């Protein structure tokens, strides 16, 4: 009961994120930090009363140091580096071009991660469609596909799969999800094409048109050297997943070495290496790139600032819900692939998908399968592991807070003249489009 009560601040913060931009947009813009502090305190103070100051401090520091810090540094690094790459050109955003771009981005996500691909491609996508008025659907499908689904093919793609890899799932096992990804891509791209075509026609009917006065497409990428820094960041992410298992980063008991912050809270050396590489890449990217490129990209700190503020609140207030999930997850009686798919997916829509994935991976490991993928948490049947992976990666797209890049894409779009839907408005899109697609996924792959 107490654990449930402690989940209220999380729900309250989510409600604020959903409702305040609609009710009091200007106030919300100025006072987001205040709201985050208030809701965090509403969790911290009762938690101190119920669990004691020591345990609460440990919980809060644990999530800040081990989860939030690496999360925001990665986002920051990718945001900085991608902001220094600009695509100059006169390719016009038509439904076919947009669909091709989405397909390319979706596949790229598995190579450089959903966050990397999102940050790299969001501005070119906005630019191609700058002549259009009705374009929110483009960014919504961008979130669906590039910021989420595309990350399912490799452990680099999305953090949950990296966690799976760290627990013994083979690196290339995720490629088994390729048919599911292709199936989803086809469905979503058809839906996207039809919707975008309708909106495109509406724009043309209203007299809007791209500038095609110059014959031929002339595409020029500036700041291309930043790809090196992008690769460095991807390497840093891979290292953060692989280094902890190396003996040189472990003590005699097998614990990962690091600097102790408070009790069991430790900033590990692999995490420090990851942070150092990412920050260095961001710094070098800034130092070596002409400011003109950032101006052309309308590079501002607004989007990352908003995400940094809101997500620290989300990470802190989410802890009771995650603790509850860890306790109750194995006892939920979830044993079938389709149950795993929906349970992992539903919770990943609102909670961090990495711990959600781990909870259900651990649960699956205890089900006593004798054949399948051998992991450190037990043997897991291929179908179950597929369901958990797809649920965690795909359904992060259900809400703006389901996956880190979702909110970034929204914020960047908001700053560049695209009228993005509200929190609930976006959920309406995912309910109408994604949920039916996931239902078909269940029928085809998980029953």
């Amino acid at each position, binding site marked *: 009961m107490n654990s449930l009560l402690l989940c209220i601040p999380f729900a309250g913060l989510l409600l604020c994120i959903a409702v305040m931009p609609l009710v009091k947009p200007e106030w919300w813009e100025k006072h987001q930090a205040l709201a985050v502090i208030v809701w965090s305190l509403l969790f911290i103070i009762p938690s101190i009363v119920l669990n004691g100051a020591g345990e609460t401090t440990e919980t809060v520091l644990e999530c800040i140091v081990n989860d939030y810090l690496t999360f925001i540094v990665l986002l920051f690094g990718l945001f900085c580096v991608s902001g220094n790459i600009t695509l100059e050109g006169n390719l016009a955003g038509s439904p076919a071009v947009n669909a091709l771009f989405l397909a390319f981005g979706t596949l790229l996500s598995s190579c450089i991660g959903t966050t990397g691909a999102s940050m790299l491609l969001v501005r070119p996508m906005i630019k191609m469609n700058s002549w259009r008025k009705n374009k929110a659907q483009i960014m919504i499908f961008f979130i669906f596909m590039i910021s989420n689904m595309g990350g399912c093919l490799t452990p680099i793609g999305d953090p949950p799969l990296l966690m799976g890899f760290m627990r013994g799932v083979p690196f290339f096992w995720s490629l088994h999800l390729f048919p599911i990804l292709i199936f989803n891509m086809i469905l979503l791209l058809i839906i996207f094409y039809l919707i975008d075509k309708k909106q495109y*026609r509406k724009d043309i009917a209203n007299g809007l048109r791209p500038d095609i006065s110059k*014959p031929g497409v002339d595409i020029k990428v500036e700041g291309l050297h930043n790809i090196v820094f992008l690769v460095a960041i991807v390497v840093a992410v891979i290292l953060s997943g692989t280094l902890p298992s190396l003996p040189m980063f472990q003590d005699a008991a097998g614990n990962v070495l690091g600097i102790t912050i408070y009790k069991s809270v430790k900033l590990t050396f692999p995490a420090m290496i990851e942070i150092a590489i990412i920050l260095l890449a961001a710094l070098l990217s800034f130092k070596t790139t002409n400011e003109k490129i950032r101006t052309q990209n309308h590079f501002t700190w607004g989007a990352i600032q908003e995400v940094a503020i809101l997500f620290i609140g989300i990470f802190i207030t989410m802890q009771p819900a995650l603790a509850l999930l860890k306790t109750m997850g194995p006892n939920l009686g979830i044993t079938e692939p389709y149950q795993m798919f929906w349970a992992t997916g539903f919770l990943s829509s609102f909670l961090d998908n990495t711990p959600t994935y781990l909870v259900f991976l651990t649960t699956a490991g205890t089900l006593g399968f004798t054949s399948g993928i051998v992991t450190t948490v037990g043997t897991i049947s291929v179908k179950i592991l597929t369901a958990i992976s797809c649920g965690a990666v795909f359904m992060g797209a259900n809400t703006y807070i389901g996956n880190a890049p979702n909110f970034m894409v929204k914020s960047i779009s908001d700053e560049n003249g695209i009228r993005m839907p509200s929190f609930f408005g976006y959920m309406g899109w995912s309910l109408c489009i994604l949920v039916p697609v996931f239902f078909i996924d269940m029928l085809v792959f998980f029953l």
Partner: protein
Amino acid sequence: MEKNRENCYEIAKQIYQLDKEVYECVGSSLGRTFTGDEATCVEEITRLLITRPQGHEIRSDIALIGNMARTIKNKEDHHRMMTQYNEILKKIAAIPDSFGSVDIINENLAALNTSNLRQKFSPDDHLIICIGRTHGSAGTDIGFALADKLKINYYDAEIFDQVLKKMDAEKEDIEDHSNYVEELKGKIAKKTGVGKFFKNFKKYHGLPVQDAIFFNQSDLICEMAKKEDFIVMGRCADVVLTNHRIPHISIFITASFEQRVRRMMELHNLNYKQAAHLLVKLDAKHAKYYFDYTGKKWGDAVNYDLCINSASYGIEESVELIERMINKYPNS
């Protein structure tokens, strides 16, 4: 009501100007809130302000400008833009909410009187007549005869010649789907293949070929409208000109299906079944083309200044009828 419109128009101009200045101050190349030309955007904002000043649509658009304004790095510019932004918000708040009242939304349409079509034009404007027609209604003949009588230019296939030159394209590469008869007769060879796809993709900026042609045609029609009087057949010219706030007269010419079939049978030496089949197909293609580029229903009387059943008048009388309506109260 007129005063409210003027007020809304002024605010709309300020909103458009603010959007423009904010975008310039930011120095971005990713696009701004109002993407069309100034006249069209200002008219659209005015319409929103008159109908729903406190509505979601206008509020969201202004909020988007505010979002961008807040990111201006230069403090002086930031302050200046935000001051203007706040002033505009205050002005909008003061607009009476007339949504749901009986105000006339489209005053231009309401002011339209078929007996003074010519009065749509100022002395500086050229006389432009856009004629839409169904096949078999003799619309083309009426258009041509009218141009001859008014001694103004007539554009049909000529437009395409100019577009072809403008786009520097080989004639056989371009297929105009609005020229349905030619298309159906298979006179234009169609090439397919990956090579052609990429060639067209590069040539037309990733746009469908048909759309790129439409955009270039539209540009051409608007350019011509600044220079001369003319009659243009089809090509959604009526909507193109409306979108660019260029005065024109739009006419739709049709006749009963039976009459049109009979004419097609005579002209093309077809039997009844063939002619009827061809007409149904052509009408469907025409309607689709018009809907695709205008969002409106082809042949719907509300979209035109004048609709004529050519079967009731014949070619000569139709021409005289149109001429009388245009010249009854000439400006000059």
